[in-house]
C-alpha cells in the first residue's frame, strides 16, 4: 500500500463514518439482519435438521435483497459527489495517481461494507449463548460464507464505483449500479430455464446464490473466487478509463 493510498483511504473511511447515511444503514442493517436471523432460528425450531442456521441465513431472500439494495446506496456518492462539488479537481491536482484515488475509494467502501456484516455475526454469538452452545459453530463453512460475502461485495462495490464515476447525479449512479447488480444476480436463475447446455453452464458459473449455498455448506470452489476477483479488477480498470475519459472532455 502506497503512502498516498493510505492517506486517501483514511479520508474515505472518515467521510463515510461522518455521513448520516452510514449510521442509518448500520441501524437498518442490524434490524433487518436481526429479523432475518430470528426467522432462520424459528425455521430451525420447526425441526429442520439438514441445514445449519448460517446456511439458511445466507440463502434466504432477506440477505440477497439487502445486498442488492445496499451496495448502490453505499457507492452512489463516491465519485458523483466529487464531480458535482468539484472536489475531484482538488483531488486530482494533488500529487496522487488516478489509481490510488480509485483504490482508496474502493477499499474505503469495502471496509465499511464489511463493518455492516458484523451485526450478523453478533446474531450467531447470541444464538450460541441462548442455546447454551448446544450447537457447535462450524467454523470452516462460516469462514467460507463470509469469504463469499466479501468476494460478492467486492464485485458489486466495484460495479457501484464504476456507476458513480459515470455521472454527477447520485440517484442516477444508484439506479445504474442497482440495475447492473440485479441483472447479474438474477441472470443466474436463468440456468434453471435454458435448455442449451452451453448456456446453462455459463449461467450457472455466475449463479451467485448456488455458489453461496456450496460455500456455506463448507464446499470450497475456486471458480467463483476467480470470477469475483477478475470481475472486480475489470470494473476498477473500467472506472479508471472513464475517469481519464472525463478529463478529456474537461
Amino acid at each position: 500500500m502506497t503512502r498516498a493510498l493510505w492517506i486517501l483511504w483514511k479520508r474515505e473511511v472518515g467521510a463515510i463514518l461522518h455521513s448520516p447515511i452510514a449510521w442509518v444503514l448500520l441501524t437498518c442493517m442490524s434490524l433487518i439482519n436481526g429479523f432475518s436471523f430470528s426467522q432462520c432460528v424459528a425455521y430451525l425450531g420447526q425441526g429442520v435438521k439438514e441445514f445449519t442456521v448460517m446456511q439458511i441465513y445466507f440463502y434466504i431472500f432477506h440477505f440477497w435483497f439487502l445486498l442488492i439494495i445496499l451496495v448502490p446506496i453505499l457507492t452512489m456518492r463516491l465519485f458523483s459527489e466529487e464531480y458535482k462539488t468539484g472536489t475531484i479537481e482538488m483531488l486530482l491536482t494533488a500529487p496522487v495517481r488516478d489509481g490510488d484515488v480509485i483504490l482508496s475509494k474502493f477499499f474505503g467502501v469495502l471496509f465499511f461494507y464489511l463493518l455492516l456484516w458484523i451485526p450478523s455475526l453478533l446474531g450467531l454469538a447470541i444464538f450460541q449463548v441462548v442455546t447454551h452452545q448446544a450447537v457447535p459453530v462450524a467454523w470452516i463453512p462460516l469462514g467460507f460464507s463470509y469469504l463469499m460475502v466479501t468476494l460478492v461485495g467486492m464485485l458489486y462495490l466495484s460495479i457501484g464505483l464504476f456507476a458513480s464515476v459515470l455521472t454527477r447525479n447520485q440517484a442516477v449512479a444508484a439506479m445504474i449500479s442497482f440495475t447492473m447488480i440485479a441483472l447479474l444476480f438474477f441472470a443466474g436463475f436463468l440456468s434453471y430455464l435454458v435448455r442449451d447446455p452451453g448456456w446453462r453452464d455459463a449461467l450457472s458459473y455466475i449463479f451467485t446464490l448456488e455458489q453461496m449455498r456450496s460455500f456455506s455448506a463448507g464446499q470450497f470452489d475456486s471458480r467463483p473466487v476467480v470470477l469475483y476477483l477478475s470481475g472486480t479488477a475489470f470494473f476498477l480498470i473500467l472506472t479508471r478509463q472513464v475517469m481519464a475519459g472525463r478529463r478529456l472532455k474537461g
Partner: protein
Amino acid sequence: MIQVENLMKRYAGGEAVRGITFSVEKGEVVGFLGPNGAGKSTTMRMLTGYLPPTDGRIEVAGAKLPKESLLVRQRIGYMPENVPLYPEMRVEEFLEYRGRLKRVSRGEITHRVGLVLDQCGLTDVRGKIIGSLSKGFRQRVGLADALVHNPMLLILDEPTAGLDPHQIRSFRELIKELGKDRTILLSTHILSEVEMVCRRAIIINKGKIEASDTLANLEKRVQAGALQIEVKADPAVAKEKLTKIAEVSLVTELNRAGDWVSYEVTAAPGKDIRGEVDGLIKREQWPLREFRREKARLEDVFVELTQD
C-alpha cells in the same frame, strides 16, 4: 517557471484554447485576464496537469506536462475556481490531510499547517467544520490548501470571486504579501484586481492571447486619455479655440449649466495637451471650475482588446 508553447485544447463542441504561447518568470506576479469563457480556467487546468492538452508544449516548475505530472503537481499550489472543499472536515484536519497528500513529512506537518493557518488568518477557526464557514473563510482555506506544501508556484483561479468588498480587500493584501517570495499566476475578470496585485498581465480572449505586457505598457496602448474641463465661456467660441490646438483630435461638448459649459478634449495618441489647454484658458481668461484628466485604465485596454 511556466513555459507554454502553442497550447491547444479542443473539445467535442469546439476549441477552448487555440494555440497560445506565453511564459512566466520566477518571482513574477502575473494576472491572467479575460472575459468569462475566454479559456482562462481551461488553460489553468492544463497547467496544473488536471486536463491533458490537445496539442502544445507545457513546462511548469521545471517539469514537463503531461509526462511529469506528479512532479508538477507536487511543486505547485493550485486553488480551483469556486474553491471546492470537503464540507464535513474541520479546517485543521483538512489542511493536515492535504499537506500529507502533497508529501509534507509527518514531522513537518504540524509546523506547516500552523504556519498557513496563521498566514491566511485561520487560526481562530482551525477547529471549525468547513461546511459551517462563510465564503470568505472558505476561500482562505482554499488558499491555505494551495500553500500548505510550500510550493514555488501558486496558480489561483478567480481567487476573489464571490467575496464581499472587505473580504476582497484583505484577500488581495494576502496575495500581494505572498507574491513577495513566490511566483503567482492568478486569473480574474476583475480588472482592478490585476491593477492592485500584478506587475504583468496576459489578456486572453476566445482562446487566444491578445496581449502580454507590463501594466504600464498596456496602458500606453490606448489613447493617453481625455481631458475634462468646465469653463464659463461662449460655447461656440470655446469649442472652436480648443479645436485649433495642434495636438487636439476631438472636442465634445458634454453639458451646459447656465453660463458654464463642459467639454471633453481628446488628445492625439501619445500626446499630452494639459499645458496647451491650460495656456488657452489663461489667455482667454475663462473662469475655470473643473480640470481633470481621465487616466487611461486597464479597463480601456481590456475593452479595446477583447471587443468583437
